């Protein structure tokens, strides 16, 4: 790290209506440093980097780059100034190919001013390769998995060859192997003198990679520190403003409890969908049991078929032929759609909240009650008082940070949006809750809240099936862990004494795992 | 004044026209209609079809250009592809259809033009009414019979820009000139439509509560105006006249008969006359059919309404 200041932001403030997202933040980025931005959901991290990347232009305060004051008119201006950004939400054009997305806005041209497709493909290969992404550049982005799309976003930002690289939760959709490759890529950038802004709620990543960290709280700087020297408890305290409980201190599973009856029994479930659905990995022989009061984890590499399994159990998979047996509370269970699943007492929190759960313009309250309207309705009319109580309870129980129940969901921070989806399905009082990466983008404090909540729900007799790419989450929260590989359940591990390495080994297919065994 | 490229040179179609005729043969007649959505034109189609039924060997196909000049050109071309024996056309507008009518005529297809003219001489016969004369007849009726003591008149005109609208307005003013006490106090287009006539009359009767009569350029608009006046309780004070006098249940003759309109003025469709001409050209091989037939108008009032309705072949 040199001491050369690349970017200096001072006195940055921004209000959205009545909400103070930022109240006078100073931030200095030096060449060759990885600068972490930490903070609770809604602390103002994304807003700050949106200002730096020219997305938000009407703010107070000054920005200077290399000593010269600047004022960006838009994203293009920031890019031209050497600032590349990976935004928190995936923003790619689904119908365009990987290569077209990568060079969008600065397409290479031939001498005839026409598109130079060969150069485009080459660029894409060059930047995707080091990330370990074997993605054909001609594939439409819409056919990629979320993780692959995330890699494309990263490659796209890298290809700008910028002085400043901003990454807003780049690993939220990535599994372990990809995260490791990304870390080495970032290290290489640091060597080249690039200033990296790194936002993540995974503290272990921060400890691993960051040189300095700025902690935001309520739109203000709560402190700056060196993550490798500070202990985790101190970071968390800075973030939330008071000492916090340990993340995985969820209280012990009630070991004394008699074995509860199974809520969900899956026996050799397999699905053969009609037509071809590229990129999907449907269940191809899954057996597992979830008992009442139990939290069962679903582990696997990216694309192992966790999402597809949950979707199938929720009746949201593609149409096709099913084989095997599924029982819910002892009765045969084959939902024709999400509606039937909900009625049978199954809830599902999907992993992609923007596309699968939320309407950003709709009010928080209405978003929360959507799936449970049946219970709040008499003769087709929604009972206002019941609705209000239900929303209040959920907002309190999940500590959703919103200015009002009428505020649009889109005005909430990412993590709080996730909690809204969570609340929606809790409100249906499911006996079985299917969770797909439920804490993606949720801050540490809130995560701990959610974990405690899950445990409480389980103790009240709910069965929970939790798919996650975060190994500590699986080992810390679950009672048992089922490992998927290519749509099959290949191992079942007790959470007690099971390590991340054990899970990875099983997920990769035994000790010989290495990728050369295809 | 044709130019380079290959614009068809007029060939002499006169004798070709006589080529395909005689008794005992089958004839396909193409009827190109400008817009079926106007009741007047729908009745014209019906008249042509009914009249053709009584001529042995005649079969008629009707196309609807839906008020689109280009579509009507294509319609005529498709008729030519089908090798029709005679073309009856009621053009949407004159100039745009002149070329394709000439093309048909030059190929030896006799052409009878109905209602609206085309330019030039390349057609066999024209049959149509005289809108200025009709407007004048209406004006004279106002001047002498309806409002001998004068008064304020509201005009609800046809679609802005259409020739009949202009001519019916002009004729009317010529007609009322005889009585200087008659004054046209407002004129708004009702686009030939009943509901437009109604809403325009709503506003105009409001703006001119002392108006004593409404001169509408066609019967549907007159009926619309009547409805508006009725809603305002003015229908007994104000008199209404229309134009067209179609012999159909929804037409103006019935409205006169039932007392809603004081009078209407016939604008004949010419359908029967066209088929008659066609018979003379195709069956009788007549060479010298009249080049222009101007259809007379007729004033329809309560006195002659029932009788006229029957005479024009209206169904009860």
């Amino acid at each position, binding site marked *: 790290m040199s001491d050369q200041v690349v970017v200096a932001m001072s006195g940055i403030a921004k209000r959205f*209506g009545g*909400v*103070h997202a930022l109240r006078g933040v100073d931030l200095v980025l030096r060449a060759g440093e990885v600068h972490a931005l930490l903070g609770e959901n809604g602390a103002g991290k994304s807003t700050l980097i949106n200002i730096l990347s020219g997305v938000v232009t009407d703010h107070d305060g000054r920005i200077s780059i290399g000593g010269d004051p600047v004022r960006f008119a838009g994203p293009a201006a920031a890019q031209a100034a050497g600032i590349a950004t990976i935004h928190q939400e995936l923003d790619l054009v689904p119908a365009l190919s990987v290569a077209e997305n990568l060079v969008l806005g600065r397409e290479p041209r031939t001498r005839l001013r026409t598109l130079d497709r060969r150069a485009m493909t080459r660029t894409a290969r060059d930047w995707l390769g080091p990330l370990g992404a074997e993605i054909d550049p001609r594939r439409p982005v819409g056919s990629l998995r979320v993780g692959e799309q995330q890699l494309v976003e990263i490659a796209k930002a890298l290809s700008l060859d910028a002085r400043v690289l901003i990454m807003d939760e780049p690993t939220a959709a990535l599994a372990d192997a990809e995260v490791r490759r990304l870390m080495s890529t970032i290290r290489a950038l640091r060597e080249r003198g690039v200033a990296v802004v790194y936002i993540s709620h995974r503290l272990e990543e921060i400890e691993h990679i960051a040189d300095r960290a700025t902690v935001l709280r309520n739109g203000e700087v709560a402190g700056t520190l060196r993550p490798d020297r500070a202990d985790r408890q101190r970071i968390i305290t800075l973030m939330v403003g008071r000492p916090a409980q340990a993340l995985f201190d969820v209280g012990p599973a009630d070991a004394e409890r008699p074995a509860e009856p199974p809520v969900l029994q899956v026996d050799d479930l397999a699905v053969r969908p009609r037509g071809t659905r590229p990129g999907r990995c449907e269940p191809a022989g899954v057996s597992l049991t979830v008992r009442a009061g139990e939290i069962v984890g679903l582990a696997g590499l990216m694309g192992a078929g966790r999402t597809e399994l949950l979707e199938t159990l929720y009746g*949201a998979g593609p149409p096709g032929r099913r084989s095997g047996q599924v029982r819910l509370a002892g009765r045969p269970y084959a939902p024709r759609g*999400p*509606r039937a*699943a909900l*009625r049978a007492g199954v809830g*599902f929190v*999907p992993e992609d909240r923007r*596309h699968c759960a*939320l309407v950003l313009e*709709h009010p928080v309250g209405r978003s929360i009650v*959507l*799936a449970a309207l*049946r219970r709040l*309705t008499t003769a*087709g*009319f*929604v009972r206002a008082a019941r609705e209000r109580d239900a*929303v*209040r*309870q959920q*907002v*309190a*129980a999940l*500590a959703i*940070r919103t*200015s*009002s129940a*009428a505020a649009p969901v889109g005005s909430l921070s990412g993590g709080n949006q996730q909690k809204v989806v969570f609340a*929606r399905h809790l*409100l249906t009082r499911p006996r079985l809750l299917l969770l797909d990466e439920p804490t993606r983008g949720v801050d540490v*404090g*809130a995560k701990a809240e959610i974990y*405690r909540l899950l445990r409480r*729900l389980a103790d*009240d007799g709910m069965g929970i099936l939790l798919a996650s790419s975060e190994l500590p989450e699986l080992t810390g929260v679950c009672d048992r862990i089922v490992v998927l590989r290519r749509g099959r359940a290949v191992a079942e591990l007790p959470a007690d004494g099971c390590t991340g390495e054990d899970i990875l080994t099983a997920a990769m297919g035994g000790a010989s795992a290495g990728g050369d065994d295809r | 004044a044709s130019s380079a490229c290959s614009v068809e040179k007029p060939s002499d179609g006169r004798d070709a026209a006589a080529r395909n005729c005689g008794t005992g043969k089958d004839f396909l007649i193409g009827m190109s209609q400008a817009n*079926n*959505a106007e*009741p007047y034109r*729908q*009745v014209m189609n019906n008249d042509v079809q009914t009249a053709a039924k009584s001529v042995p060997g005649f079969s008629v196909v009707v196309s609807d250009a839906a008020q689109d000049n280009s579509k009507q050109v294509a319609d005529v071309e498709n008729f030519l592809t089908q090798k029709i024996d005679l073309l009856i056309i009621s053009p949407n507008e004159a100039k745009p259809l002149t070329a394709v009518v000439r093309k048909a005529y030059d190929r030896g297809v006799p052409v009878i033009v109905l209602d609206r003219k085309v330019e030039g001489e390349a057609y066999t016969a024209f049959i149509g009414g005289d809108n200025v004369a009709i407007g004048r007849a209406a004006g004279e009726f106002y001047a002498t019979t309806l409002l001998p003591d004068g008064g304020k008149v509201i005009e609800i005109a046809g679609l802005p820009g259409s020739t009949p609208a202009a001519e019916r307005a002009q004729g009317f003013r010529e007609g009322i000139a005889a009585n200087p006490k008659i004054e046209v106090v407002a004129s*708004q*287009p009702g686009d030939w439509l*009943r*509901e437009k006539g109604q*809403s325009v009359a*709503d*506003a105009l009767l*409001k*703006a001119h*509560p002392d108006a004593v009569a409404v001169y509408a350029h066609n019967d549907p608009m007159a*009926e*619309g105006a009547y*409805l508006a006046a009725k*809603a*305002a309780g003015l229908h007994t004070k104000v008199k209404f006249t229309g134009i067209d006098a179609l012999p159909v*249940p*929804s037409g103006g003759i019935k409205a006169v008969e039932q007392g809603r309109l004081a009078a209407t003025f016939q604008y004949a469709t010419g359908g029967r006359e066209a088929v008659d001409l066609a018979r003379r050209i195709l069956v009788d091989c007549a060479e010298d059919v009249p080049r222009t037939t101007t259809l007379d108008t007729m004033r329809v009032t309560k006195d002659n309404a029932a009788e006229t309705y029957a005479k024009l072949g209206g169904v009860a």
Partner: protein
Amino acid sequence: MTHLGAPEKGSGTPVPAGGGTADGGDRWWHRPGGRGELVERLFAVQSLFALLVVFVLAIAVSPRRDGEILFLSTENLGNIVRAVSEIGIIAVGMTFVVLLGGIDLSVGAILGLSAVGTATLMVDSGLGILPAVTVVLLIGALFGALQGYATARLGIQSFIVTLAGLQVARGLARIWSGGLGIPIAYGDGPQEAPPAFEILNGTINGVVPVPAVLFLGIGVAAIVVLRKTAFARHVYAIGGNEKAARLSGVPVLRVKVAVFAIAGLLAAVAGVIHAGQLNQGSPNDGAGYELDAIAAVVIGGTSLAGGTGSMGGTLAGALLLGILNNILALNNIDANVQLLIKGLVIVAAAGLQKLRRSIV
């Protein structure tokens, strides 16, 4: 809900900062405080506000006679509402469709078909008012439902389905009527309609036209439906994000079919009124009404992208268009200039809507 009770005391539950949930109260439920709230309140009634502006302007430019403002006479006001009642009723149905993220181009043609049906069934088939109207409304609803099914099931965009539906309905109307308007005469004889049907042409207390009453009645009912029912929540949800709605258990197919059926039904209602007002069922009537209805919906603040909007706005939008038409006609503005002015007002009204979003 036992397990989700009040936040646990003392267990470290983070209290939402930033004045969030703590002070609770109804204010929290309703709206955020502060400047945003004020602006939002102002704009929530904004299409009403625009309506007011146009109303005041109309008074200002209205021609006068003997000191009387012609525009303001009870009769003229009644006429305005009567004149917009058909478009207004259609616009109510259109609002549901647009909220769903769709569009319905067939409503004008359905109006024509229904007007023909009303006249034919009463006059030629000799049905009574109730059976005739019932049949016509059923046809309209069924036609709409079929279109909804085609969009929802085959996944074809509603623009295309209803563009085709427009042609089909128009063709059917012309075939049914033989291409000519069917006049409605009143009386007890054969070929005559029950005189009671003429009520559609009448007024209540000699002031308020019956179609106007129907329009406002339907409008108010629709406001209630849209505010209070689960069905409306489903419509908004589908319009906002169909996939999310499906995953939340919304019966997407059923809701879509119902919405298009409502649009068809209301177009048929407008058709019955049309026949009653004009004493005639004409197959060519209603052409272009769909565009006016859509304009009313959009001026009322409902987004064509679906998912946001209100019914009150649509009513205000329809009335605004009606006043505009009326005042232009009262002032004898040239028909072509009227076209220009109306075009510009539509853009201005839609622009105002956008302004709102960017301020709040």
